[in-house]
């Protein structure tokens, strides 16, 4: 288990070990969507907004 700080609210997030760059995770405190920018050490940033043509 590793930790990182929410880019939106500053809360500390517990992160799984199999974290991937580019992965999207939700902040349990503020609900923000966060993107994993780096894994070692973990760095999180606000995830880009979903756009209209995103998804299957």
């Amino acid at each position, binding site marked *: 288990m590793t930790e990182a700080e929410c880019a939106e609210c500053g809360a500390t997030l517990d992160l799984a070990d*199999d974290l*991937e*760059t*580019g*992965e*999207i995770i939700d902040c349990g405190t503020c609900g923000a969507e966060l*993107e*994993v920018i780096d894994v070692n050490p973990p760095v999180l940033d606000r*995830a*880009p907004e979903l*756009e*209209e*043509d*995103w*998804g*299957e």
Partner: protein
Amino acid sequence: MQIGLLYSRIRKDEKLLLSELRERGHDVTKIDVRKHQFGLDGTTAPVDDLDVVVDRCLATSRSLYATRFIESYGVPVVNSPETAEICADKAKNSLALAEAGVPTPETKVAFTKESAMEAIEAFGYPCVLKPVVGSWGRLMAKIDSRSAAEAILEHKATLGHYEHKVFYVQEFVEKPGRDIRVLATDGEPVAAMTRSSEHWLTNAAKGGETEAFELDDEALELVEKASDAVGGGLLGVDLMETGDSYTVHEVNHTVEFKALNGTTDVDVPATVVDWLESKAAEKTAAEALA
């Protein structure tokens, strides 16, 4: 094998694929398409030694262009840009299915509000209005009356960007509260499930209930034909039951499979990676002959 994964978001689906690939000892190169340029004579993306590239771009526009460029560098890419182009556009998708003789809902495309209104009135109510691009069932409208049709067409014409100026009108298919999603590799089903909902949209993304589904011979044949119709690849084929038969609504090219993996007994990522290995082997065999 050396495998590239094109992405801009790693979802559960991509994580499942990545861990299966790594467990088998494959060399995975993750390519974040946001960070690279794709030129006429090459790219900053590390694609040179790859046996196959899997396109997992969420954004249709990125998927369409990145796959086109990567193919031009002589690197095999799944799904192919041809498949992406047909699947990314509901009108092209419908045409491809109809031309291949696959039963698909009756569909009309119109370019003005007035003409779309005529199409809607000809279908009668309810009927369905969809954007030609878009995903997860967003911005789809079930139209129950002429006044609803007028309001929706007015909103689309005023607020939508140009893709919403193409009106895609479809008959409403009365289905038994569920539709069928089949994941297939070049027409070969990996697994299938039903998605049920009280709501007329039954997408798993919209919270429908899922259950494993056994395909009969007719469904198997339709999945194969639908896959061929769009050029094959790793696809999600959406069918609906129409009494004693099926109709194929659409074929998806950046298919999500996490819900399917949790619903059926099939190890979905393992089956997909088996197929990717066969794709890479085809390339190696072709090179040996050259």
